[in-house]
């Protein structure tokens, strides 16, 4: 007879107030996401104070709704998984405090999960047979990492950004073009109507001795191009700017993935994070015959609690339980 492990997961590191219930780590029974993006659109970015206040308003409702939808009772939950970093400290603390209170009351273990490791785990839900080892490219608004995933709870960072995250470059270019927040989806959409070779933006490859990324120079190049056009009175073809910028980002990411494959001999590539939803990135990597590629569906690319539950489940199996004194770590690094 097999015992089913039920995980209740909570994620409040940035935009989303999210709660999920999972069975044996990889089967979603409920996945509630309340997004604040509509609120943030007015500000052109996530506003931290607004974020924590809204998390506070939504957290109890999200947990109740997830439980209802899953058909599980509080008493059936085996453990809680919750994001403790990286993220905005005020936002993280809302989810963490709620999770601690639940764990204490229900007398069940709490597992603190790294948000980035959660993004990787989203793929275990999307692809039920996927197993480590593999190479994972995590690209989002706050992170750009190349990680060698050696086991469900073993991570080795082999490359990362030295300045801006890839998604941040999308957000900042979008902001300058007046396209709004978040920048990824709108730039992707407009890029489809533009010429990726119209403007030759620099692809910072950082040389062959490193797997690190740099996107600050590309962002500056786009902004300087726009400034020059405005000063000279040249017209700006927004679609071409989007397509050329996106092309530069995708080529950079692709270049480093190929380099990492060569270096590690690993051909199983997994995409994670919000930018994994980018159609050009999926196409560029998906069309390479040498790559065995995996990426999550759209709703598991962006922040959600199911991915946190999955990552937490594997930590739980390993016996990696946190104390009730676990604190939020805004600058948490992967593998810590």
């Amino acid at each position, binding site marked *: 007879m097999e015992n089913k492990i039920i995980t209740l997961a909570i994620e409040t590191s940035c935009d989303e107030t999210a709660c999920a219930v999972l069975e044996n780590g990889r089967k979603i029974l409920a996945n509630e996401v309340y997004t604040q993006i509509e609120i943030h659109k007015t500000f052109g970015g996530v506003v931290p104070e607004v974020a924590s206040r809204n998390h506070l308003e939504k957290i109890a409702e999200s947990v109740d709704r997830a439980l209802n939808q899953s058909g599980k009772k509080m008493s059936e939950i085996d453990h809680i998984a919750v994001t403790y970093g990286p993220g*905005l400290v005020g936002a993280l603390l809302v989810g963490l405090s709620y999770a601690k209170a639940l764990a204490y009351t229900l007398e069940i273990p709490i597992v603190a999960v790294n948000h980035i490791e959660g993004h990787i785990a989203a793929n275990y839900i999307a692809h039920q047979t996927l197993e480590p080892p593999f190479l994972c490219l995590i690209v989002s608004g706050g992170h750009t990492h190349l990680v060698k995933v050696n086991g469900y709870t073993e991570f080795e960072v082999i490359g990362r950004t030295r300045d801006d995250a890839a998604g941040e470059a999308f957000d900042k270019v979008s902001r300058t073009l007046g396209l709004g927040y978040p920048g990824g989806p709108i730039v992707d959409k407009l890029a489809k109507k533009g010429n990726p070779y119209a403007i030759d933006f620099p692809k910072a490859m950082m040389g062959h001795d490193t797997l690190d990324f740099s996107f600050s120079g590309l962002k500056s190049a786009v902004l300087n191009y726009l*400034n020059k056009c405005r000063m000279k009175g040249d017209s700006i073809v927004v679609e071409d700017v989007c397509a050329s910028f996106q092309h530069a980002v995708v080529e950079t990411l692709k270049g480093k993935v190929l380099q990492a494959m060569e270096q590690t001999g690993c051909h199983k590539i997994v995409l994670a994070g919000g930018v994994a939803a980018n159609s050009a990135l999926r196409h560029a990597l998906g069309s390479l015959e040498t790559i065995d590629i995996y990426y999550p569906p759209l709703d598991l690319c962006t922040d959600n609690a199911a991915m946190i539950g999955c990552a937490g489940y594997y930590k739980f199996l390993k016996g990696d339980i946190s104390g009730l004194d676990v604190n939020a770590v*805004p600058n948490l690094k992967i593998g810590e």
Partner: protein
Amino acid sequence: MEMKIKSLDETKIYAFELAKRLKPGAVVCLEGDLGAGKTTFTQFLCEALGVSEYVTSPSFSIMNAYEGLVEGVKIPIYHFDVYRISDPDEMDEIGFDEFLFGSGISVIEWAGMIVDRLPDEAIWIELRLDEMGTRVLRETIKSERKSL
């Protein structure tokens, strides 16, 4: 004080000179549009202050903390990006004053959005591109700072 910056090396030299003047508790405020060179300037400044890690953009987390080393003494370096702050009171959410009035050195990008929360002794660095596309760096203190 205003000067034209013609190369990356000149930015680096300026940042290293500035670093020598910074004591624990110092606050460096950076202003300038996207792409003006705030991140690059901060990277050089942190390098001069003995930070060995990569200094990445704090846009997502609002603040990144590093460990610097000045004359053999470890000192915390706080790197803020307050662009996303819509009301200066929101800085309380991240415990801003505890960092600002502690023993570390703070570098704040988009500091113009929270002027009232910053000490009078703060050093203001404005970076911009002139009509010719040349980088211009201007250093002032709060009382001399022109409203941008």
